[in-house]
């Protein structure tokens, strides 16, 4: 197969294909969405709307429930991120210092959390939460969100800590640093990029979580994605588009910020599996 690809300049073809895929699957729907959100009147076969308008933005932002859901979503995401850091970072450090094949455990937990049917898991958790009185509570929603991110919040920082070799910690002690100073000046700064990437991921994942929130948090904890469903059901497409943009904006901002703060090199080295 290689030989045929080679003949026609593989690299260019691939770059072109990647671009096409990227445009078809990500850019074009988003562009379409932006146009829709600012449209006033729009009849079908035309490529662009007749009238531009902010009417749906006003409508969405004036709805009380929507404003509340935005606040709630960010509160939950912040709580989930903070709790995950407290729980997972010490575990990640411990994992990093034990010799075991990380990639195997990673793969196993990856298959477990990702291939495992979430609906089945959420229902079983809901049943348990019902008994524990955690249904329709903030704690319940936060716990459900944490299940989604536990794996990444452990393995990405583990890989980051693993990149801090014990010789690097030991040579810091050797020149006179106490164990605490070593952690503060050497270990933590070196692993920080990986921890930040994992935290950003956790925050965004929590913002977007819908299935688990729906099962555990209804009726009081209606986050952005949950409210979205009712908007889509009750109002025209343009309102959905507006809300969609509000939901997507923090993601893009945070991703760009993380990208700036953490260079691609550091990010990928923080994600190496060994």
């Amino acid at each position, binding site marked *: 197969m290689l030989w045929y690809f080679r003949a026609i300049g593989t690299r260019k073809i691939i770059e072109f294909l990647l671009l096409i895929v990227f445009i078809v699957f990500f850019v074009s729907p988003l562009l379409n969405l932006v146009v829709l959100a600012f449209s006033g009147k729009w009849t079908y076969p035309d490529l662009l709307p007749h009238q531009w308008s902010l009417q749906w933005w006003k409508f969405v932002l004036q709805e009380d429930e929507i404003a509340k859901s935005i606040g709630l979503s960010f509160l939950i995401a912040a709580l989930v991120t903070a709790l995950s850091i407290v729980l997972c970072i010490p575990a990640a450090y411990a994992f990093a210092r034990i010799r075991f094949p990380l990639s195997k455990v990673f793969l196993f937990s990856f298959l477990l959390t990702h291939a495992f049917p979430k609906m089945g898991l959420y229902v079983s958790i809901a049943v348990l939460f019902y008994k524990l009185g955690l249904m329709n509570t903030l704690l319940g929603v936060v716990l459900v969100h944490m299940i989604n991110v536990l794996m990444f919040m452990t393995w990405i920082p583990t890989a980051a800590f693993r990149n801090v070799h014990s010789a*690097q910690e*030991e*040579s810091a*002690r*050797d020149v*006179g640093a106490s164990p605490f*100073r070593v952690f503060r000046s050497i270990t933590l*700064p070196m692993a920080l990029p990986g921890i930040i990437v994992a935290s950003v991921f956790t925050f965004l994942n929590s913002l977007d979580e819908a299935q688990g929130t729906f099962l555990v948090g209804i009726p009081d904890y209606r986050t952005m994605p949950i409210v979205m469903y009712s908007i889509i059901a009750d109002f025209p497409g343009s309102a959905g588009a507006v809300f969609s943009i509000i939901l997507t904006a923090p993601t893009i901002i945070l991703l760009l910020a993380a990208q700036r703060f953490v260079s691609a090199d550091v990010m990928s080295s923080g994600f190496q599996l060994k």
Partner: protein
Amino acid sequence: MSIQLSIRDLSKRYKTGEGVSGISLDVNKGELITLLGPSGCGKTTVLRSIGGFLEPDSGDILIEGRSVVKLPPEKRPTSMVFQGYNLWPHMTIFDNLAFGLKIRKMPKAEIRKAVEEVLNLVRLPGAEKKYPGQLSGGQQQRIAVARSLLLKPAVLLLDEPFSALDAKLRHEMREELREIQTETGLTMVFVTHDQEEALSLSDRIVVMNHGHIEQIAAPQDIYDAPETLYVAEFIGKMNFLKGGAQEDKLVMGRMEFPNAKRLSGEVVVAVRPEDIILEPGTRQEAGLPGTIKQMMILGHYAEVSVDLGDRGIIRAFQPRDKVKELHLGQSVNAAFTKVIAYSNN
């Protein structure tokens, strides 16, 4: 000369059964001593015990007469250069070097001056603002040595610091280390598995095997008179043949040698490849008859493999000029100028 480092009956056993026991060793001030042995022989265990990264099961370690065995690494007057990953990639070279001095609360101006001096010493002047990732492997190890030198340790510990470098660079770094040692007069303990490195660097070599010391001696003496069969096998190239010991004589075919160790019965006779003289033909009275099996030129000398029949194959180093007279399959006589005998068990 005063004794700078003294290890007394050190023992450390791991659950796996590996480790060291009964290690005693005195290192003089200004001496460069090498711990040499294959991996798993315990040489790194000894070094890490001196540095404070391992707690020995028993025994004592004294530096300048004071026991340090209870101190954590940051309190010991030692400094260690590791095999790799010595530097902190998120700090500049200056910060890497200054880290230990800052902890010691040295004034800033002095730090700056000390760093500049030590960078000159390791031949990397002006590297202060670079990051470790911008330096080559050899340069990084030089910075690691520099960082240790800055702290003026009583004993400098080096854990195979050059083993990740390529052959040529390794050779250069050895020379530089030797020069730094001459200039600073530091006491150094160097760990390596490379016998050539040990021979070329050390004032004395400590040959280790399975957690104990086989021999401690100067490179010349280790090479000329390996005390045990293990040392003979490990240091330099050596041929081993069977021979017989009779009172004050060692007998091998038509050759006889003095039996200095007073061995008896069957013995193993060790001959260095350079102590073998090959002469064409088999007329000679002394020596063993054989045929040339292979000739390989190794730079300024050649290695000739000679098939001695039942006695096996021996390898002899010959001057390159001499080899021109020899050819494959030729019958030759192999005479030994010097042998060492070991009892056969």
